[in-house]
């Protein structure tokens, strides 16, 4: 039975209002509490380690929700999930983790997702992080996603973390095979003393493989962010890395994009920018009647949209 707090966390991380549509698995405080498989989308608990296998049959279309919520203090949870998207399937998968830490101990979730997108399949993957709590206990989230996109497959990852999480280390590794396409949108906002590290490594394995990594972040307060997006072309692939950060207050942002080609037909581009909010942007919105705080919020919100 979900409590009001559980529902609130599920709404924050997965935009869920009531029972999820489609197949789902809800994990709370280290245990799976509700689960539903559908024909063609099987969710099976692992026997040897915590976590689930999500098996999507070839050609299947649908939605899968696998959110994690944590409501206790002084608790660590480690989960291994495997997602197999069958040939020509078309799946919208919503993951994510919401932490409400009510005490002074740390609450931590480490999630490892192994995903395979089979030939011609399509996956839209959304992973949103949320944290809250008014005591000194920290909210820690460390996701690792290992992705393989087979020939002609497509995956789009939307990775979002807006405030609330004290410390995160995100690792994303992907291999894109011939004709495969990958798009990663990463959006991050840190504040106060929060820290966030993001390591992304995408390998373009063969011809016609493409990848696009778009990272947008805002660092406020005394927070610290480190980005290491790397794009390697072993085959004749094409890729683009774009990292943009708004830096404010006493924050620190380090952005180190890397491109690396081992094929003369590869085309890789990277761009990175760190800067404050432009004065003219603030003035423009204030000239529409917004206060300077409202203008700043609107600029940040648009930037992270």
């Amino acid at each position: 039975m979900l409590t009001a707090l559980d529902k609130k966390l599920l709404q924050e991380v997965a935009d869920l209002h009531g029972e999820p549509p489609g197949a789902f698995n809800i994990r709370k405080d280290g245990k799976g509490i509700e689960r539903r498989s559908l024909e063609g989308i099987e969710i099976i608990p692992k026997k040897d380690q915590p976590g689930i296998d999500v098996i999507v049959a070839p050609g299947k279309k649908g939605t899968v929700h696998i959110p994690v919520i944590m409501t206790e203090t002084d608790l660590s949870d480690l989960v291994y999930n495997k997602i197999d998207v069958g040939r020509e399937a078309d799946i919208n998968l919503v993951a994510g983790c919401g932490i409400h830490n009510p005490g002074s101990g740390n609450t931590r979730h480490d999630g490892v997702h192994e995903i395979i997108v089979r030939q011609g399949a399509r996956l839209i993957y959304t992973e949103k992080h949320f944290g809250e709590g008014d005591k000194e206990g920290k909210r820690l989230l460390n996701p690792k996603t290992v992705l393989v996109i087979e020939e002609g497959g497509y995956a789009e990852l939307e990775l979002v973390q807006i405030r609330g999480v004290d410390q995160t280390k995100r690792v994303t590794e992907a291999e894109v095979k011939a004709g495969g396409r990958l798009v990663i949108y990463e959006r991050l906002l840190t504040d106060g003393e929060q820290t966030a590290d993001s390591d992304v490594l995408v390998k373009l394995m063969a011809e016609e493989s493409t990848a696009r990594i778009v990272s947008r972040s805002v660092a406020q307060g005394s927070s610290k962010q480190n980005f290491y997006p790397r794009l390697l072309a072993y085959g004749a692939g094409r890729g683009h890395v774009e990292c943009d950060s708004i830096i404010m207050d006493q924050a620190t942002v380090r952005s180190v994009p890397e491109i690396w080609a081992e094929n003369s037909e590869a085309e890789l581009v990277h761009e990175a920018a760190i800067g404050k909010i432009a004065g003219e942007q603030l003035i423009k919105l204030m000239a529409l009647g917004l206060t300077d705080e409202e203008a700043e919020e609107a600029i940040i919100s648009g930037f992270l949209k």
Partner: protein
Amino acid sequence: MLLLDNISLELETDQGKVPILHDVSLNMDAGKMYALTGPNGSGKSSVARVAMGIYKQTSGKVFYNGEDISELNISERARRGIGYAFQHPPRFKGMPVKDMLEMAMKHADGVNCQVLRDIGLCPEDYLERTLDNSLSGGEIKRIEIATILAQNPKVRIFDEPEAGIDLWSFEQLIDVIGSSHREDTVTVVISHQEKILNMVDEIVLIKDGTVNMRGDRDTIWPQIKESAECSCRSNCRLEGEIYADCPR
């Protein structure tokens, strides 16, 4: 409606304080359209930016409907009813056109996305577009005009609205600025374009940071043209389309 009273302005630069405006006084009445024209760097945009509160005058006062608004900031002036369309509108990564129009309409009454159609942009094509480098300079400029139309302020200041806009859109722009002007509105257009100068009631020539000439269009325009040609013959300082028949 809007009064700039003895405005002087100095701006801090790398070279120290630079005088920009000297004792500029302008009274602008509801129902009238005004053009501010003059050579590049003469101070036209600075006059507008002082009115909007973007620049703080060194001396003098700004009044709106009799109220001294000299100490009000940009937002407060916008909420009173002053609007300013930028000469070079900033770009916003990730912000859709729709959001910008909604923010503009928050403090206005009942204008909808018809404003995009008015300036030749199809809402279906543009509402979700983001105000970043994916839009051309001309598109950004037209959206800036649409934003002011959506904001619907009582004092509308357009800073070189024609800059970067193609010829076809320019005709549309003139039409929409003219047709949206109302009896309770002051419209101020900073421009060098003869077609724009022809549509206003009064022309103000700003030169070397002062009001050099001012009067109704039919009286002032021939004098300005003559003055421009004389100056141009002597030192070729003046530029812009209205001086196209300059003999240089």
